[in-house]
């Protein structure tokens, strides 16, 4: 505390991750979003062209990706050039982008030797994978 009772300005630089971490995380976000948007854009255009005259009510009633929500289903669909599989891939990339950011955070916290933040980030990562790979498929 300084003489007038206010807290002293904190030592920011001591707790800041290396600049490389910010650059990499920015890159992860931009690449992930760009890739997801490109795949989804291609998928939606292909879907609209392949279904001329279809109504929005029909589309809303029948989710075209239900057959591709497993790894084997997605693999088979992509190999067959299925539009639904392409759209599923775009959605997975979009969901995975912030998860990769967490992985990036884990790498840098471990690199600078911060055990507490490494443990926290690893726990977050495990929980994210739990939702995608265990909880979602289980309650479907």
């Amino acid at each position: 505390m300084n003489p007038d009772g206010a807290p002293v300005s904190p030592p920011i630089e001591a707790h800041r991750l290396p600049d490389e971490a910010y650059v990499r995380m920015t890159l992860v976000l931009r690449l992930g979003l760009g890739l997801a948007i490109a795949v989804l854009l291609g998928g939606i255009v292909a879907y609209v062209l392949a279904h001329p005259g279809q109504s929005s009510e029909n589309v809303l009633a029948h989710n075209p990706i239900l057959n591709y929500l497993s790894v084997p289903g997605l693999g088979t669909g992509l190999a067959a050039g299925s539009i639904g599989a392409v759209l599923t891939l775009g959605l997975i990339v979009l969901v995975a982008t912030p998860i990769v950011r967490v992985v990036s955070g884990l790498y840098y916290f471990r690199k600078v030797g911060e055990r507490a933040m490494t443990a926290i980030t690893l726990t977050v990562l495990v929980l994210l994978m739990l939702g995608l790979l265990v909880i979602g498929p289980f309650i479907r």
Partner: protein
Amino acid sequence: MDLVLFVVLLVLVAIAAGLVGSLTGLGGGVVVIPLLIIFFGASVPIAIGAGFVTILATSSATGAAYVRDRLSDIRIGMFLEIATVPGALIGATVTVFLTHANLESALLVALGVVLFAIIPGSLARRHIELPAPQPPDARSKYLGLTGGYHDEALGQDVTYQGARTTPALGVMFGAGLVSGMFGIGGGVFKVLALERFLNLPMKVSTATSNFMIGVTAAAGAGVMLAAGYVNPILAAPVAIGTASGAFLGSRLLPGLRNRTVRILFLPVIAALAIEMVLRGFGLP
């Protein structure tokens, strides 16, 4: 509605939602989910699934700029995600179970109530750009929850350190729960915890909230996607439009004072909240 017109309108609505979402740090889902239900005929869980896509696109589009400009506090964001992610997993699971139990009307009413809850949260401290300093707690000191940035609108360097981490974690769990249930990001609750308990400046709160929203949404979206409630024909145009609007919004944020953004946004939230509650009770 014809599919081509449907897709074009979705993109236009999503651009507006992305713009508003990034300017307020709320993520865009707050606007887009009610609009999908009201004007596009989406069921409640499918609209929520699209809401998650909206949040993911917004957070990634604007998060990149915030991280690059050091406005997002990665350390504080990661620390608080330990509470938001379990909340989101539980919330999304509850939504799927309510849908399976044919209780979508209850989800609608609850969504309206949550939208109403956002309003006082937004009004509470709208005249404060920078908080008065508070002493950090032991956990904040141990984890080094501190940072600083240059505020363009105020024309000064700003430093901060997290204060009360325990209540912040509690609010973050609730924010994750709300986000997971409704696909709305829970940004206002995150900003509330960051401002009121951690005592962070408004712009850092907004940017860090945006940073966290993506990870929280990934938890909820993972559950909803794997459970079959993300329809890409609805979600893909929404994602594309939202990312475009959010990118534009992130360019505007550094030069805008927060009170302007909030005051402009509140009447929209109120109208959508009323509509959700009325629909939930089956009223016109």
